[in-house]
């Protein structure tokens, strides 16, 4: 089963508004990462937050992490049409052979001008 689950599945907003996406996960983590995917393209890394961090900023992005609730949120402020994309959270998952990043199903963000 997937480690991370994003919420909502889809989000439609107007340019200039803020967009908030949430991610819940199941097991202990070393870090949580957020990725962006434009339609038909590969994923691009946005930001990594470690388990001992509570908040991190990168430009218009703000990520929070609550390890007690096993959840994270990604906030995009003053959204632009170019922010239209799918956003995924990812966490490391342990299995018999080692550890690798497991992705959630993603949130599809549509920003209209």
């Amino acid at each position, binding site marked *: 089963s*997937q480690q991370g689950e994003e919420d909502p599945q889809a989000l439609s907003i107007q340019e200039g508004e803020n967009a908030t996406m949430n991610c819940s996960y199941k097991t202990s983590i*070393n*870090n949580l*990462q957020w*990725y962006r995917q434009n339609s*038909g*393209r*590969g*994923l*691009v*890394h946005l930001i*990594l937050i470690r388990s001992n961090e509570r908040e991190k900023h990168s430009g218009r992005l703000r990520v929070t992490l609550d390890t007690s609730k096993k959840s994270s949120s990604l906030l995009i402020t003053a959204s632009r049409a170019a922010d239209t994309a799918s956003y*995924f959270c*990812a*966490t*490391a*998952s342990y*299995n*018999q*052979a*080692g*550890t*690798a*990043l*497991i*992705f*959630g*199903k*993603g949130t599809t963000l549509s920003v209209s001008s």
Partner: protein
Amino acid sequence: IAGITQAPTSQILAAGRRMTLRCTQDMRHNAMYWYRQDLGLGLRLIHYSNTAGTTGKGEVPDGYSVSRANTDDFPLTLASAVPSQTSVYFCASSEASGGIGELFFGEGSRLTVL
């Protein structure tokens, strides 16, 4: 700098045929990964390799095999393709293994099995 190169970009394949998706990275990353992406299911890990010479199974490994003979290449083979393997396949790499660093993705290989 190319980063991650995947080939082919797109392929239509008859069921039962053998197919190898190629993935090459020029970043000298230790770890490499194969994911498949299906509508409504997000990305699912097929196989991964933490370093040259080692491989591991992900969430959905059945019907797929991988090899990691050197640092740069990580081919994914479908020994006998089935329609349920129709998907977009993404190769990725990271400098560190174990999910502790960021992944760099290729642009994907769209595979249709008829």
